[in-house]
């Protein structure tokens, strides 16, 4: 199966197709994580993006039913250097190629992903078109150039749950992944950490929320009611939440006026608010700040973030193409975390209100667990009131 990736700058990469026989447009971006492709594929924040992995050997451990971050993969297309011809891991249920095929996502392998990444680093994120169908270079380029791009488009509405629901009421999906130790029961898949009682009710605005955020919140003893992204402040408040969570999500944060308005209203209530990624960008706007598009974004599992209060450095998992402009934030907001690679804002807190947020992913999955304590901090913030 011949496959193609065309970029708006006129470049064309041809290689071997895998996954579904399909075509798609999207913003082409690269991720530097060496593990965790299944979590990346299923992260709703990648809606409308064609993702390439800088690590060349992908698919080695297959896919399994546990390591998912939502109900299906969301990437528009997946571009890698070499697909493993074999799956080798005790938890694997299927191969990466089967998984993408079942989900209608085109894959491209056998191209020089390093050349592609270098192009994206120099030119910045580019619009592109991927196809595993019979299509000429000229047509592929035309489709790449005619795609309108992410700026100003609301992709949140496409990935948010349409109806409100309570996360994992039966406590079947929230236990942390754990390996069997010593003489514990034989099927390691059944080994679970016990969960604390779910005694604090909160609402979570779902802009395209990763499951591991929900798992981490549940592990902290929160009873989480998930609301559609379009929910108003009044709709949230009728559940009498002790805390409000704002999730990650795809696309341009400046296209989400309704979400910014809801958060502005909620900021008046004094209820503690915690935001991650897009939630951080929405909070930034609700407080009067502005967002801007990064040249090629931060996507990977090795981004160093310095906590300016404690002086400690956390290695974080990140996935964002936009950032909050520090200079645009009002005086009653304090930037308390920065990225050590490019000094951009990675977190801020309100000086008088119980509000804090981070641009990166403390829920990891994929990525390091260094920032997991932030979920406990959210609980402490609520309990201290």
């Amino acid at each position, binding site marked *: 199966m011949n496959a193609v990736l065309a970029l708006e700058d006129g470049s064309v990469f041809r290689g071997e197709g895998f996954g579904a026989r399909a075509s798609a447009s999207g913003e082409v971006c690269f991720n*530097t*994580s*060496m*593990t*965790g492709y*299944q*979590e990346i594929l299923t992260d709703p924040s990648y809606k409308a993006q064609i993702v390439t992995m*800088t*690590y*060349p*050997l992908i698919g*080695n*451990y297959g896919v*399994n039913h*546990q*390591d998912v971050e939502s109900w299906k993969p969301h990437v528009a297309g997946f571009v890698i*250097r*070499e697909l*493993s*011809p*074999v799956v*080798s*891991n*005790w*938890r694997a249920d299927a191969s990466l190629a089967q998984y993408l095929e079942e989900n209608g996502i085109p894959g491209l392998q056998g191209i020089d*992903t*390093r050349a592609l*990444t270098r192009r994206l680093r120099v030119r910045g994120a580019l619009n592109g078109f991927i196809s595993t169908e019979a299509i000429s270079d000229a047509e592929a380029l035309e489709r790449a150039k005619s795609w309108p791009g992410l700026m100003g488009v609301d992709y949140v509405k496409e990935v948010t749950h349409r109806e409100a629901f309570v996360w994992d009421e039966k406590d079947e999906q929230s236990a942390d*992944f*754990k*390996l*069997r*130790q*010593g*003489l514990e029961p*034989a*099927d*390691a898949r059944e080994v679970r950490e016990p969960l604390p009682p779910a005694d604090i009710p909160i609402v979570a605005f779902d802009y395209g929320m990763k499951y591991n955020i929900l798992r981490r919140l549940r592990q902290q003893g929160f009873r989480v009611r998930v609301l559609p992204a379009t929910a108003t402040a009044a709709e949230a408040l009728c559940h009498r939440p002790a805390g409000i969570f704002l999730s990650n999500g795809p696309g341009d944060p400046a296209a989400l006026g309704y979400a910014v308005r809801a958060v502005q209203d909620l900021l008046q209530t004094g209820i503690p608010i915690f935001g991650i990624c897009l939630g951080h960008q929405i909070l930034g706007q609700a407080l009067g700040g502005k967002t801007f598009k990064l040249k090629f974004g931060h996507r*990977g*599992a*090795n*981004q*160093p973030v*310095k906590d300016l209060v404690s*002086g*400690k*450095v956390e*290695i974080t998992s990140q996935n964002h193409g936009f950032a909050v402009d520090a200079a645009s934030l009002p005086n009653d907001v304090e930037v308390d975390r920065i990225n*050590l*690679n490019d000094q951009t804002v990675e977190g801020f807190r309100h000086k008088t209100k119980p509000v804090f947020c981070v641009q990166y992913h403390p829920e*990891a*999955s*994929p*990525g*390091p*667990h260094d920032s997991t304590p932030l979920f406990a901090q959210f609980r402490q913030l609520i309990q201290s009131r």
Partner: protein
Amino acid sequence: MPKRTDIHSVLIIGAGPIIIGQACEFDYSGTQACKALREEGYRVILVNSNPATIMTDPEFADRTYIEPITPECVEKIIVRESEHIKAQGGEGKLALLPTLGGQTALNTAMALVKRGTLDNYGVEMIGANAEAIQKGEDRQVFKDLMIQIGLDVPISGTAHTLEEARGIAERIGRFPLIIRPAFTLGGTGGGIAYNREEYEDIARRGLELSPVTEVLIEESLLGWKEFEMEVMRDRADNCVIICSIENFDPMGVHTGDSITVAPIQTLTDKEYQIMRDASFAVIRAVGVETGGSNIQFAVNPDDGRMVIIEMNPRVSRSSALASKATGFPIAKIAAKLAVGYLLDEIRNDITRETPASFEPTIDYVVTKIPRFAFEKFPQADPTLNTQMKSVGEAMAIGRTFKESLQKALRSLEIGRSGLGGDGKPWRIGEKLYGDRDILPASLIRQKLSVPNAERIFFIRHALRSGFTVEDLFNLTKIDRWFLTQIKEIVDFEEALASTAN
């Protein structure tokens, strides 16, 4: 935190002569440390008896002692240098950095602690303290510590009667089992039991031979997958993983004799992160305050169970590999951390713009292959086991595992261009075979079932003679992912050969 100003001179202990099991990797780390510390304005004193090292070149240290690396000699050096610092009216103390010269340096430093030398002359050990070295090096202390912090270790038990021994075997529930009689000279009377009969025999014999009628029984990890993590920690407890390594050869072969690959290839992110968390838990529990450590894990391929095997509280052979594989100069950074810097205060040598507090992520694969010289030692047993026998190693970088493997094999300087197919004959014992001859199945089976220097080439011979990946897995327990990669190389060789005909 900036660098410490209460240190006047740093004494670095080198690794001494090159022997099997300890080679030029410690010249590499020691040289880096000398350079880094002089850059920071410290007076560097070096002791190393090996003149064929870069670090003993005059420009690398302020004073170089080419003297035996023994506690007695190093004590004399400490006495002389302490007096020198005093005579010069120098501000600050003498510090000893023992973590860059391999096991020799570590052992010598521990002997100096026990003799009281360091206390008597007010010498501070930096990089790792005596307690941490003790915890990392003493097998039982280390194992107890791991259990205490909730990490998994091989299941074991002690028995004083055959009945108790049967109970322990029952509890562990599978063979093979390792039996070690207590307090016998060199552990005589122990062994590995693969079934119930063998187990009863060895346990009975062990109990008889042990002067206290006691045997230690432990589950065997033979055939499990082996992994390594290279960790760095600074004074503020920032921890980072520099490099993850997967061994091509499963447990049972010394890491120094294993083909090793960076980064890890066959773990999901969930499993990898558990290993990362465990690595940090180990370095913190052992108490290595600053610098690098190497932590080794075994993973059961059937259920993912992950046990800690050991840790080296110092720069090791793998650190040299990890430094070259990632561009992160572990020894240099370890030296700077030892004198008080934090990771985010040190510049990243690769980007020159960002700090060293990050985890290298690579877009290539690194393969290291040990170099053996059994032809020079006809008396030596060429079987690979837990005692290191290689005399050197070669490393190669490629965009695929296949590329890096072939390049590393070509780098070994054994006359081969890769796995084979280069037209050169194979000498197996007394016999000579053509490059593309099909070797006898019995020979192949024998060479695959017991780890040896030629095993990698016999995977090719086996695939060419019709063995399947599953056959190979059953014989070697090498992960199917690696075997399939080699099969792709062999298939390509066959495709090329068929066009030539």
